[in-house]
């Protein structure tokens, strides 16, 4: 039997139908789920760029013109996962079809409204890339604990200080003892009053006795000469005594003066040592105004702190796509090719309290060198509820060496109402009302900030309360402030800027705190003064009599010396000779 085999066609036409059905199903699913797919993709990509969880409430699309609308974007702050770095109410952008087919995301116009920074999250956001410890322990947040106010007690100071009063008293007592011994030694050699009186009697007898003969005269002269030798010896003893006692009196007077002066010197020294230990006091402006200044800086540096890191990461393929398991998307963009991502124009509305600030952007991209132009931004706002005038201009570009950018701002007449400076229990301070003017500029070169700003607060009314005495002094000083000029220096890396705030407040508060510290210690100092004075006065009282006695002794000695001197200077021979002559004249005359 002949077999007939029919060669089947190589094509399976029903398969083509099946293929078309499959493609149609895929297209239908993509169409229906496009918004969800876009939402997931955006959350994932933005989350990677942000380094922390990003939530999007809703995504809508429109084909002609190709438009994407995103609502309720919350970008977790990796440093504070309980807060959003930025929250965006609505975002709408038109995509260029032609560029999209070439894999480029070129938005002609993007409008973003309801942008707020540092808003609390409903739940803690997941952090994908932990910030470094340096970033977490930044320049703020430590607050009042940085100001360590403490003053040593009087007892503590007494342990450290070498009190002069007891030493002076002890030295004076020792000196008194030594001088007394020396005086006692020479006192025994001092001719007594009786001796002096006996001398005088003998001299009187010699001068007043009758001399009959020259032989008697010679005897008298002999006796007087012997007496004069004694006078000389005694006078020598008196001079020696006077020298010792005089020295003792001078020494003791000096010691006494030292003892009298010692309490005052000790008190001055104690006061000196009782200076307020005020570590961190010079940072009081940063501590009190730091948090709030940081909030203001968040707005002022928004372009850098929010957008720059995301653009930087978007330029880093390895950061966007982890290599393992997911692969890497290579970019072969030529140096003159259009950037992969570009927002030509954008208008962003920042919600600041009840006011909205419009910021106009141009050329947002991470490939500025390809574009040949920097990203520019400009904000203007006048006569609204929060400020009377605001001008902010800036530009930035991502280059091979990092970020280059500059920004200037001037804001006047900002109405601050119930602005909390510190909510800590130890010191709570709120600006009830104030007018703020600020101007400044900041440049970013190779991802390093360099800039300065001034913040002038006028017509300030501050409400402050405190727990301890030192904080109370700060609170009191704050409440008395009406105007304050703060200087801010901005340095450091892009993601870790270092703000240093300084003002005259530091000096004012330092003086107030020091005065308060001394007032607080005055009670104890008074007790110390009384104790030292009492010690010194006691010594003076006890030894004043001894000093007087020595002074009297010195007077006596001088008196005795004078009497001896008088006797020494007597011309006995002449007197006796005169007497003998008179006698002889009488005898001869009678004859």
């Amino acid at each position, binding site marked *: 039997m002949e077999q007939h085999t029919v060669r089947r066609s190589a094509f399976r036409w029903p398969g083509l139908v099946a293929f078309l059905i499959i493609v149609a199903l895929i297209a239908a699913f993509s169409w229906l789920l496009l918004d969800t797919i876009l939402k997931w993709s955006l959350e994932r990509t933005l989350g990677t760029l942000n380094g922390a969880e990003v939530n999007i409430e809703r995504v809508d699309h429109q084909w002609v013109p190709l438009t994407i609308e995103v609502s309720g974007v919350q970008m977790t702050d990796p440093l504070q996962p309980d807060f959003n770095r930025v929250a965006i109410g609505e975002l709408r952008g038109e995509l260029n079809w032609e560029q999209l*087919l070439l894999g480029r995301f070129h938005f002609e116009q993007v409008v973003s409204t309801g942008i707020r920074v540092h808003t609390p999250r409903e739940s803690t956001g997941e952090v994908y890339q932990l910030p470094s410890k340096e970033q977490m322990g930044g320049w703020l947040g430590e607050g009042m604990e940085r100001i360590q106010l403490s003053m040593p007690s009087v007892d503590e100071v007494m342990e450290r200080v070498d009190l002069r009063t007891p030493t002076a008293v002890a030295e004076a007592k020792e000196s008194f003892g030594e001088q007394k011994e020396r005086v006692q030694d020479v006192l025994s050699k001092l001719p007594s009053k009786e001796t002096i009186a006996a001398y005088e009697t003998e001299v009187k007898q010699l001068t007043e006795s009758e001399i009959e003969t020259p032989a008697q005269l010679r005897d008298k002269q002999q006796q007087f000469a012997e007496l004069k030798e004694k006078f000389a010896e005694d006078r020598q003893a008196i001079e020696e005594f006077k020298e010792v006692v005089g020295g003792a009196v001078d020494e003791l007077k000096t010691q006494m003066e030292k003892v009298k002066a010692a309490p005052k010197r000790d008190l001055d020294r104690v006061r000196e040592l009782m200076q307020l230990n005020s570590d961190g006091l010079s940072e009081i402006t940063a501590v009190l105004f730091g948090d709030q200044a940081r909030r203001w800086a968040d707005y002022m540096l928004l372009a850098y702190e929010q957008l720059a890191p995301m653009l930087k990461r978007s330029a880093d393929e390895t950061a966007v796509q982890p290599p393992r398991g997911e*692969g890497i*998307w290579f970019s072969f963009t030529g140096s003159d090719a259009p950037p992969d991502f570009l927002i030509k124009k954008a208008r962003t509305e920042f919600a600041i309290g009840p006011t909205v600030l419009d910021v106009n952007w141009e050329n947002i991209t991470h490939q500025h060198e390809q574009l040949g132009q920097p990203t520019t931004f400009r904000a203007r706002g006048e006569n609204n509820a929060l400020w009377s005038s605001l001008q902010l201009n800036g530009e930035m570009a991502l280059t091979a060496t990092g970020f280059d950018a500059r920004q200037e701002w001037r804001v006047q007449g900002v109405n601050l109402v119930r602005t909390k400076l510190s909510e800590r229990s130890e010191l709570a301070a709120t600006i009830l009302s104030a007018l703020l003017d600020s101007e400044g500029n900041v440049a970013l070169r190779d991802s390093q900030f360099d800039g300065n700003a001034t913040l002038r607060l006028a017509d300030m009314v501050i409400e402050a309360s405190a727990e301890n005495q030192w904080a109370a002094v700060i609170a009191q000083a704050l409440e008395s402030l009406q105007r304050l000029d703060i200087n801010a220096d901005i340095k450091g890396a892009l993601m870790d800027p270092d703000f240093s705030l300084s003002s005259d407040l530091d000096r004012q508060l330092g003086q107030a705190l020091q005065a308060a510290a001394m007032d607080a210690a005055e009670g104890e100092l008074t007790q110390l003064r009384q104790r030292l004075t009492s010690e010194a006065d006691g010594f003076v009282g006890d030894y004043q009599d001894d000093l007087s006695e020595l002074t009297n002794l010195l007077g006596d000695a001088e008196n005795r010396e004078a009497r001896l001197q008088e006797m020494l200077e007597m011309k006995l021979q002449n007197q006796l000779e005169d007497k003998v002559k008179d006698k002889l004249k009488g005898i001869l005359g009678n004859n």
Partner: protein
Amino acid sequence: MLTLLARLLRALNSESGAWALAIAFVLGMIMGFTPLWRVHNLVILLIALLFRVNLSGFILSFVICSGLAFLLDPLFHQVGFAILSAEGWQPVWQAMYDSAFWRVVQFHHTITLGSLVISLAFAPILAIVSFWLVSQYRRRIQTWFNKLRIVQALKANRFWAIYSNLRG
């Protein structure tokens, strides 16, 4: 899965061409190794459905190779990375990058390019080996296999019922 195996066994025992089975294995391998949501996979699917390629072999090959791909992804990435980084090829890649068609193909993704290149390089080998195995099975093993006691026993269970139904 049992149905799929049964269909494959039926195809092996049928008059389907050995090349049809071998090509099905190759197409399934390419689709399994490369990331699923790529344009070239639509082309492979179109080939598999439009031409008389054995669909059971295609699907089975796709399932097995998709599982293997998870293990081989690092290798695909390394190969793709090396190719895309090759200095001499940069002008080609740049030209392709500027083309909408090639951008849609997503050639610039390391795993996509690496897995496609490895799959295509392995495709002739797999095709020849598959053809030889199918031929050898039909020539030597099929009769002997059917006479095995265990096969006889299996014919009594559910698997055989499915197989028979397919036949019927």
